[in-house]
């Protein structure tokens, strides 16, 4: 009975791995066939030599970085304050953070375009609206990651301990709370990064040079380069996850112990 269970478990694991890796492997193999008859990295060279790629990718990284910065500045103090001072509001706040999951991005985008494309708020093409829109889109990931981090530490007691030693709110937040939820913030930040870089609909309507629209356009005209871009995107995501796990292994996140 036990052996049977183990066989099933392994079968399901292998099935899952194949389901995930086979398309990726196929994409990778396809991306190497840009030159007739030989396997080469020609499609990757083409992508990196394309000035549109550099431009769109740099813009996406810029938007992602700004989004993460605004998101951290907005959500970390909010989550901290809610947990410390208004714990009863947590359910309502959690519901609000889930709204971007419920409202389709296309509806959200049209709403933004309609609201901000005529006076008095004609900001449809301004970086402020782009960053604000991306911040809302990344809210479920960033806010919840921060909230999970705060759940792992005794926010109230640590805050009060710091205050009793003379610390003000800024010191409490930047010297005590943020260092102890660093890994959770990074988790949320990298997820936000992946969302912003890979987001197509909002980028199509609000942001002119962005990575996802560039990739979509490329797919209509080229064969091998989009496959190379897909592999690059995966590599980038994995690099982010690798960084998270390396930092997580360090002493960044709060460790609880010492009950003996």
């Amino acid at each position: 009975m036990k052996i049977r269970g183990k066989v099933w478990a392994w079968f399901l694991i292998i099935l899952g791995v194949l389901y995930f890796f086979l398309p990726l492997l196929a994409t990778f193999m396809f991306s190497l066939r840009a030159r007739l008859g030989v396997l080469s990295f020609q499609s990757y060279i083409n992508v990196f030599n394309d000035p549109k790629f550099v431009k769109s990718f740099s813009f996406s990284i810029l938007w992602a970085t700004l989004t993460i910065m605004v998101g951290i500045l907005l959500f970390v103090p909010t989550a901290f304050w809610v947990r410390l001072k208004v714990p009863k509001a947590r359910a309502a706040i959690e519901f609000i953070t889930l709204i971007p999951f419920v409202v389709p991005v296309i509806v959200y985008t049209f709403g933004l375009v309609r609201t901000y494309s005529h006076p008095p708020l004609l900001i449809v093409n301004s970086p402020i609206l782009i960053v604000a829109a991306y911040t809302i889109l990344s809210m479920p990931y960033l806010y919840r990651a921060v909230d999970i981090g705060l759940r792992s530490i005794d926010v109230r007691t640590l805050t009060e301990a710091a205050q009793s030693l003379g610390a003000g709110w800024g010191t409490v937040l930047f010297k005590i709370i943020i260092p102890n939820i660093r890994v959770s913030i990074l988790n949320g930040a990298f997820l936000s990064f992946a969302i912003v870089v890979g987001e197509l609909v909002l980028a199509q309507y609000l942001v002119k040079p962005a990575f996802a629209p560039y990739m979509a356009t490329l797919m209509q005209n080229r064969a091998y380069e989009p496959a190379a871009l897909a592999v690059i995107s995966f590599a980038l995501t994995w690099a982010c996850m690798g960084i998270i796990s390396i930092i997580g292994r360090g002493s960044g996140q709060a460790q609880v112990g010492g009950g003996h």
Partner: protein
Amino acid sequence: MTHLSLNNISKQFSTNTVVQDFNLNVQKGEFVSFLGPSGCGKTTTLRMIAGFEIPSTGTVILDDENITEKAPNQRNVGMVFQAYALFPNMTVAQNIGFGLRIRREKKEAINQRVAEMLSLIHLDQKGDSYPYQLSGGQQQRVALARALAIHPQVLLLDEPLSALDAKIRVSLRAEIRAIQKKLGITAIYVTHDQEEALSISDRIVVMYEGKIEQVGSPFQIYNFPTTAFVASFVGTLNTTAAEVVDPTTHLLQIDGVQLQAAEGLDDRQKGDKVTIAIRPERLNFVSQERKANILDCTVENITFLGSVVRIQVSIGSNRFYMDTFNNPFLELPKIGDQDQVTCSREAVLVLRQ
């Protein structure tokens, strides 16, 4: 000289009054414990001294300064928490030096003070360790050192030993008391553990339902409780209803059995109902020592508690506990034995209603 003064303090959370009419003067260098069951308001009172709660009415005066509405980080008060509350991202030395860094003291001065504190808590070699590398007892000692490092005017301890095992609790409470005496610092200690309060304090404030029941030295609180709550909360106590027979001679009656108290009936009339209390260790069998009050009893149960043997006897319809030292060379009574117990008049406490 009064160092810390709490005047007419009360605290309400919406319609719930948690602390009311709290008045207390604490002398410099005094060790005062707030003792009471959960929800009696002792921690709320401590938090009002720390500044984490603002009193609904009343004032907190520290060194002649009204600090009632001062923010916690503006008061020079050290606090030790039940959950240690060490900063996990900092080493032991960084934790201890945190308050001094906030005060922008010089690096050399901070290092010197941290070394002093590490030596005080006997953890000289642990400066570079992180909190999670220490045991619970060591973490709490670091928390104590961190609170003391800033030279606080008063040290507040909120059930600091509750999370530790029994043996460490006993050794650490002695260490806390020794450090407090050595530094001569005023300390307020919150606990629900009567043994802890009795062993460590200069004075105990017994609280119940937000009010002070009794303030006194451990000796006074244990031996002369003035209310039924203090009597029942601190130590084991036999309490029973009695009727006043003669207030001038302090004569009482329980179930037709007469016994005499030493005091406490001056404002009573003949026939008044009162509650009396007798500590188990104040009762003896008549054969051991003859006293004023001699009461017929039946032995109902005998329990060994290590150094003490607790004997349950019935006197009329009342059951009393009687404690005697466990001496293996003395013969104990048997269950069902008819005997007589006695106690001094001073042992019969007439409680305030």
